[in-house]
């Protein structure tokens, strides 16, 4: 394949061809088997190696497919599937109880708030620390990418477990080591900064977030949001507002939440 053909295929896959260009392209595909196969392969490459897409099989016509289909239809597969299902259900019974407790808590909290409002209790004008806790709680924490060597991946999964259990002091050194060993990932920076904030290492959290903002990572702009929360944690409301205004002016990540938080601060 030459460069021109490669560009043509790329433009087709990105929907960049004009109507007449696309017509010519499709005519070539219908009459040229080799070209059609090249397009199919390029599409597979794109969809597989782009983390947002997935490359679906166009056809199940192969010996291997038939063999696997037969395996999945076998009694053996059904029995294994049944066991896996029972194991999951057995453990999910425990977590359902935990979830139930959580779902009792929130309506009660809401009821208390409603009563406070009805009786004229001012539940706005929250302290900066309360706002920090509230908005951090609402933020969806990103997951780590799983590219990297095996040791780093295993350590990051351990850190993820600690984070899920809010054991920030245990997660922090793992994440810090991963960063120092050159593992570049936006989620890593964010989760490390949160660990540092939650363990009152505010200077380190600020450095971590500045590194994220300065990096070439796509998650870089998220650093502003978490910096705004950091400044709330340490009572620097003016600096928090500065970060929030940057988010709003540049349409960075979490713009709507930034507007809402800025309104509360003002």
């Amino acid at each position, binding site marked *: 394949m030459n460069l021109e053909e490669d560009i043509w295929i790329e433009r087709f896959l990105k929907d960049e061809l004009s109507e007449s260009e696309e017509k010519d392209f499709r005519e070539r595909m219908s009459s040229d088997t080799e070209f059609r196969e090249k397009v199919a392969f390029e599409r597979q490459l794109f969809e597989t190696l782009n983390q947002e897409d997935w490359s679906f099989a166009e056809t*199940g016509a192969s010996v291997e497919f038939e063999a696997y289909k037969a395996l*999945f239809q076998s009694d053996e597969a059904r029995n294994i599937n049944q066991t896996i299902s029972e*194991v999951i259900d057995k*453990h999910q019974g425990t977590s359902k109880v935990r979830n139930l407790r959580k779902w009792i808590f929130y309506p009660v909290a809401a009821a208390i708030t409603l009563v406070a409002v009805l009786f004229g209790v001012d539940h706005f004008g929250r302290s900066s620390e309360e706002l920090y806790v509230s908005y951090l709680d609402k933020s969806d924490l990103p997951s780590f990418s*799983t590219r990297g060597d095996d040791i780093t991946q295993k350590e990051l999964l351990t850190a993820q477990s600690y984070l899920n259990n809010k054991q920030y002091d245990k997660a922090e050194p793992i994440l810090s080591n991963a960063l120092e060993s050159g593992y570049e990932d936006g989620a890593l920076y964010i989760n490390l900064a949160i660990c540092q904030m939650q363990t009152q290492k505010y200077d380190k959290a600020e450095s971590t977030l500045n590194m994220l903002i300065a990096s070439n990572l796509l998650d870089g702009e998220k650093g502003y949001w978490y910096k705004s929360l950091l400044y709330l944690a340490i009572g620097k409301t003016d600096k928090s507002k500065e970060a929030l205004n940057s988010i709003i002016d540049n349409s960075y990540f979490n713009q709507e939440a930034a507007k809402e938080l800025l309104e509360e601060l003002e």
Partner: protein
Amino acid sequence: MILSKIYLEALIQNDRKRIEMIYEECYPPIKAFILNNSGNQEDAKDIFQKALLQIAMRYKRETFEITGDFQIYLFAVCRNLWRREINKSKRKVTNREVGNIYIEETDSALALLEQKREELFTEKLTLISENCKKVLSLYFSKIPYSEIVKTLNYQSETVVRQRVFKCKKKLTELIKSDKRYLSLKEL
């Protein structure tokens, strides 16, 4: 990794006790990943179950080896199954679908072969030069050429375009020269 082999054997032998160990060790980060990526508890359970069955059936047929940690491999399979699930809604209806409902075993077999293809492509990506890896990582992430120029300090978009072409050619050669590609070619 010996533990990987133990877990693989446990799956095809339907060893409940060891499957419980796999659940306790591996489920929490997988659940966290799916909940953090637009999924719910039911999705997490479903994906975990499908992933384990997929691995079991693949090991049954191929006796393949997991060179790294089982937990990490299982996480990768779950992540890909979730990617697949999220992208299903973007797909056009093909003539394989009957009333928009797949026979589950057909879907499972296809998902397994798609996973094998993903592993092959990803593996070959690690074999190209560092520079090619960087260029192609940005390219496949749909970063515009103008931004790739800035990020990697190239002179122009034309230079980036040529680099992408050469790196993709190298990657393609590596993929197509692997015998595993022959069995996946028909997909």
